[in-house]
């Protein structure tokens, strides 16, 4: 069997982390290629449903990242986001979603190296955890079989 390659989705803000990831590239820092980056105007825009949808579509891990506190382009988007993450993460934990598979981080436009590190550690961690079959089994359910009672 081929070695498991984790699929990671990264939801990042346009102003800090996306620019940071750009810097990682222009600085020629090598990092794992397992990540698909989705750019948002702000972490405040990252709806919790998107995280669930990423798992539905087969993501094994998720990175959510934006500006450091006090650095938000829109002043407070990341503070609002932080509150939501705190609560949403608790709820996910309560319903048994593996919260080890969701990594939250602050990566600024200057932290190219940190971005590489965030991605690399996430990939390593997800590699250890293996594919998220638990969720995918449920997500494939409609296609997999007919319900009968």
């Amino acid at each position: 069997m081929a070695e498991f390659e984790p699929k990671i989705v990264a939801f990042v803000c346009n102003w800090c982390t996306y620019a940071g990831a750009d810097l990682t590239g222009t600085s020629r820092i090598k990092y794992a290629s397992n990540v698909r980056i989705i750019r948002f105007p702000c972490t405040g825009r990252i709806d919790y449903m998107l995280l669930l949808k990423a798992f539905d579509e087969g993501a094994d891990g998720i990175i959510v990242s934006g500006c450091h506190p006090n650095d938000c382009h829109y002043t407070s988007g990341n503070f609002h986001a932080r509150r939501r993450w705190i609560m949403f993460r608790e709820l996910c934990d309560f319903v048994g979603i593996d919260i080890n598979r969701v990594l939250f981080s602050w990566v600024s436009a200057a932290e190219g190296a940190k971005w590489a590190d965030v991605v690399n550690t996430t990939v390593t961690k997800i590699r250890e955890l293996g594919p998220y079959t638990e969720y995918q089994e449920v997500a494939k359910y409609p296609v997999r079989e007919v319900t009968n009672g």
Partner: protein
Amino acid sequence: MDELRKRAKELLESKKVSVVIGYEEGTGDRIRALFVEKPEDVSRLIFDSRCVLNLATYITKHEVKAKGKMAITATIPVMRSIVQLAYEFQVSDKNLLVLGITPESNLMEFKDLLEVETYIHKFEIEINASYREKLDKLAAMTQAERWRFWIDELAPCFKCYACRAACPMCYCHRCTVDFNQPQWIPVPSHELGNLEWHIMRAVHLIGRCIDCDACANACPLAIPINLLNKRLLEDAKKHFGGYQPILKGDHLMSTFKPDDKENFIR
């Protein structure tokens, strides 16, 4: 009860309100909502320990609102819902008068919603012991066990949305679950559709749920969905010192503190 009927009659006769929302004897040993519009019907109003249905769910209903000014029989959970609804601009002193019922079953009339707010703040929102025990039991499980627990518990859900309909806070004309562009949540009842629906419901009630159990009581299949809300109430307490419905000011999820604490962001 006599006091309630008397007051309701006065209010209707003097045309201070057009409708009094209260409880009446239902079929079997059930109780149900009653909308009194004629003073002579006040004798149907009752109040006893069976009256746990959260009547606040009706004050946002178009047909009821259209009747004019409403008076509502309100126990503490109902009052909490009302204050929260007022915060969200769904009701106001203009169209609602609260006929409060104290924990000792005494009538307590409020001049305005501000008085209601002051009154309910005397009582903490407390999760009762039996539910706390259930929450603790779930917290002690492993993540995989909890996952299995919820997938199994939610499996019977056929998405009748009684939980949503019974919840005073679920007054949206078009709920996220009904949106299909994009189709956030699968329409059919199956493991994924049920899970996502209940997660969504719980998230949208963070900081708004006042722990009245209307959702769980309404569920024809007795799925303990209120556990999700209760856990989030506990979490709100743990992280942000809890909340109470308020008429004005900063609301749990529409505000933040620069020094909100967490230990998971890198």
